[in-house]
């Protein structure tokens, strides 16, 4: 699939206009997963705008977003970077055989107290 197609699809899926970004970095300042990410929230916005998608789609960073909405809440320009991270991840996991988490993997990850909520959430986030 072409890069331009990916970019268009990501913009449509996310509903985000990365041009609204004024590069203040508040999303990355507030992100709880910052240290776990290779590319940080502000970079998602910048790189999607510039079309540098191969790096983003190959990066493990897309599985590190906790969907905590902190960047959505605090962005002064209403860019909503979390939507972009979600859209890039979907662009990857929606491809055939690209599920990041498979149902068969789950039993090994369970313990006695783990709430069901964690499993369904992870499946929703990591798989199509």
């Amino acid at each position: 699939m072409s890069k331009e197609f990916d970019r268009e699809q990501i913009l449509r899926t996310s509903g985000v206009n990365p041009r609204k970004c004024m590069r203040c970095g508040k999303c990355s300042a507030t992100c709880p997963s910052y240290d776990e990410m290779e590319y940080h929230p502000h970079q998602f916005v910048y790189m999607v705008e510039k079309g540098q998608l191969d790096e983003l789609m190959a990066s493990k960073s897309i599985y590190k977003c906790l969907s905590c909405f902190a960047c959505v809440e605090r962005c002064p320009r209403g860019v909503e970077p979390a939507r972009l991270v979600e859209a890039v991840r979907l662009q990857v996991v929606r491809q055939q055989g690209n599920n990041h988490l498979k149902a068969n993997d789950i039993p090994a990850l369970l313990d006695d107290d783990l709430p069901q909520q964690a499993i369904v959430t992870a499946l929703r986030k990591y798989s199509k």
Partner: protein
Amino acid sequence: MIYSYYPGCTLKNKAQELDRCARLSAQALGITLEELPEWQCCGGAYSMATDEIASKLACVRALKDARTRGHDLVTLCSACHNVIKQTNHAMAEDADFALRANNYMAPEAEYHGETKVIHYLEMLRDTVGFDKLAQKVTHPLTGKRIAAYYGCLLLRPGKVMQMDDPENPRILEDFIRALGASPVLYPYRNECCGGYATLEDKALAQKKSDTVMTSAREAEADCIITACPLCQYNLMKNTPEAGRLPVIYFTELLAQALGVDEEAKRA
């Protein structure tokens, strides 16, 4: 006062205490919670993608059912509340999404976000009233220092959830005061516990949960209350045992203060 009630899957399983205490307390406060007969799992996370329709239909069905029954819908688990409230908002505000979602449903009765979704806490604040609640407390928790943990899902995105100031909330603190205890303010009460990352990145969940736990401990709290089973899990399982404060559901505290928890009394 009658409400439709959406418990969610975790409350039927690992977080039964959250649910049980909520029902007992509601009864004591003269509120009837009518569980929706055919609710399905909310999915745990609200997909932010504009083209995710099918995964949100379970919520739309629950919302529509609540509309038919004619009562506002009460939720309890933070995650369910977040997903249902955001879905409802999208059905009301996003015409494109509403059109596509309605296309999956029975065509004769389109849904456009008519149901009012409130969290159990909002019900306590706005319907019962914290002052009235305080009068009904039979076993006041005087002297207890309690840290409220909001996490992220209860408050954000603020514009949609509209429960409280997302950066400086007070609803849980007011709740704690109503029960006769002292709320402890600490800065990480609205930061993420690590959430579902515990499944594949334990270290991340441990780091985040520890920040919250440490912050509450330094503020000299006796225990932490929460409305989210996953927060409760992370704070209990992903923090070092030394210095770990007990983490309980806010409804457990409520049932205790109202003196309705027979099991707890027997124990």
